[in-house]
């Protein structure tokens, strides 16, 4: 068999396997992300059946997957939404950062992974999975609940914070000395602020580049612009993912809605490839070695995330049961933690970061799916009623 045939067979088999896993995940009410990661692990380095020919294809696909994940995230929000959210929830955002990012940084330093490892692991433990959580909110019928805006605003702040965090991560990876690192961080943040300003001020002009009527040209155009800006951002030492995110934010109105609908299937394909590729490049043999730190980190940061949501809901004037609902629904980490770990390892962080992030995301998504449902149980409702009686 020649290479061309083999590549088709490998890609086909992997996609087919992913589809079956996706169905299985939907059946048990779980996000497919952990299953994709495990699937990649099984086929990758040190796994059961290493891929040969399709490796390069998956590598490029994974890069595009990261860009599309961020571009579509940007499309969901309008600049106005981001600004008003930032104003309202800056304290919740700060608490979220302190409680959840610091444990990750501390753990990395304890493991002796250096400053890059610390910044990367801080990001991994910081960001909740907006994808998983938005789906859980809808599935459990909580979109109408009064605590939901508090939950969503934490997700929005985290997403916006990524625009500044990712360039910092890139800068730390490049910077040799502390001083040089500080300069490149400064430049990166400056560039992001500039692009954000352009997006906020002249976003409607950018949107006019495209027509919402022609689906095909819209698809090619938005995809092209996203990759172009991402490449330029990468060239300026500002993570390409951030460039993609900012393109998403700059587009607004009907063009954004239409672009969202034409790009979503592409995002699903390439993002799934990204998760599988992340698993592929992660050494399954190292998984056991990092299991203990992953479990400890998961327990600590799941608790701090519950506290974050609880406090944010309390600030919003929500009652005790609603505060618990907010906290427990935020537990799951997901796509972003994997993206951050992927970028960090690609930029030269310790390779153990990848298996640690894999184990960590697996644990938080699994526990998170159950944790979010605790507040709907009879037991929890009875406890809350008892508490209310005692207080009276």
């Amino acid at each position: 068999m020649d290479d061309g045939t083999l590549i088709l067979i490998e890609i086909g088999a992997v996609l087919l396997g992913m589809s079956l896993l996706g169905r299985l995940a939907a059946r048990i009410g779980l996000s497919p992300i952990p299953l994709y990661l495990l699937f990649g692990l099984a086929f990758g380095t040190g796994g059961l059946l290493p891929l040969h020919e399709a490796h390069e294809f998956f590598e490029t696909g994974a890069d595009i997957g990261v860009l599309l994940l961020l571009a579509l995230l940007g499309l969901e929000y309008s600049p106005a939404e981001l600004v008003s959210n930032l104003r309202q929830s800056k304290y919740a955002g700060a608490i979220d950062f302190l409680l959840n990012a610091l444990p990750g940084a501390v753990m990395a330093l304890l493991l002796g992974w250096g400053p890059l490892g610390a910044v990367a692991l801080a990001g991994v433990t910081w960001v909740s999975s907006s994808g998983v959580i938005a789906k859980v909110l809808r599935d459990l019928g909580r979109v109408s609940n009064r605590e939901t805006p508090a939950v969503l605003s934490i997700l929005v702040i985290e997403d916006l914070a990524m625009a500044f965090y990712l360039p910092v991560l890139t800068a730390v990876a490049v910077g040799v000395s502390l001083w040089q690192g500080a300069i490149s961080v400064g430049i990166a943040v400056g560039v992001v602020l500039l692009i954000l300003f352009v997006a906020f001020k002249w976003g409607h002009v950018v949107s006019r580049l495209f027509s919402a009527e022609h689906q095909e040209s819209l698809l090619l155009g938005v995809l092209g612009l996203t990759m172009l800006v991402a490449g330029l951002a990468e060239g300026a030492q500002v993570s390409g993912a951030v460039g993609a995110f900012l393109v998403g934010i700059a587009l607004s109105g009907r063009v954004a809605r239409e672009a969202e609908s034409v790009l979503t299937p592409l995002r699903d394909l390439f993002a799934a490839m990204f998760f599988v590729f992340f698993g592929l490049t992660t050494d399954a043999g190292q998984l056991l070695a990092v299991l203990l730190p992953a479990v400890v980190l998961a327990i600590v940061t799941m608790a701090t995330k519950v506290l974050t949501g609880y406090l944010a809901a309390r600030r919003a004037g929500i009652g005790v049961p609603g505060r618990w609902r907010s906290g427990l629904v935020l537990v799951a980490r997901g796509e972003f933690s994997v993206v951050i770990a992927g970028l960090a390892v690609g930029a030269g962080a310790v390779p153990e970061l990848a298996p640690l992030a894999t184990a960590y995301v697996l644990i938080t998504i699994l526990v998170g799916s159950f944790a979010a449902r605790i507040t709907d149980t009879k037991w929890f409702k009875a406890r809350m009623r008892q508490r209310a009686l005692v207080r009276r």
Partner: protein
Amino acid sequence: MTIRIEKVDLPGIGTRHDLVTESGRRLSVVAYRDGERNLGIFDVEDPDACRDSIAITEDEAEALADLLGTSVAVSRLTALTDSTSGLYTEQLELAPDSPYLNRPLGDTKVRTRTRVSIVAIVRDGGVVPSPTPAEVLRGGDIIVAVGTRDGLEAAGRLLSNGPD
């Protein structure tokens, strides 16, 4: 009577409108960006949570709005006139054998003959407010009339039997 409706943005999802009723219950309507709507009824014990959240289509939402809107319009009129002594509101159904069936409202000369005002016609779940004399009456129309007790009785006879 002021009704307070609270609007909350749900970034990435849509918007939510809340209404707290006079009896203290909270209702909410979530409009998703993709056009889907959700009608939420909040729990009594936990006023932050929805007890039930019902997905409704755009057509259903419109029908529901019509239904609620009609009854509100009619009951408001009733409330208005009940407070004025000697004036009453009555809903008169146009009988299928009425002589005014498919004829304009002006032909009845109801105001001149009975001193009764027609303030609205309820038809097919909708409302025709302040109908003009040219408005053609249809079978099954509910005519909302305001007048004295005697006037309303006379108007009822007029509409079903024609002038004496």
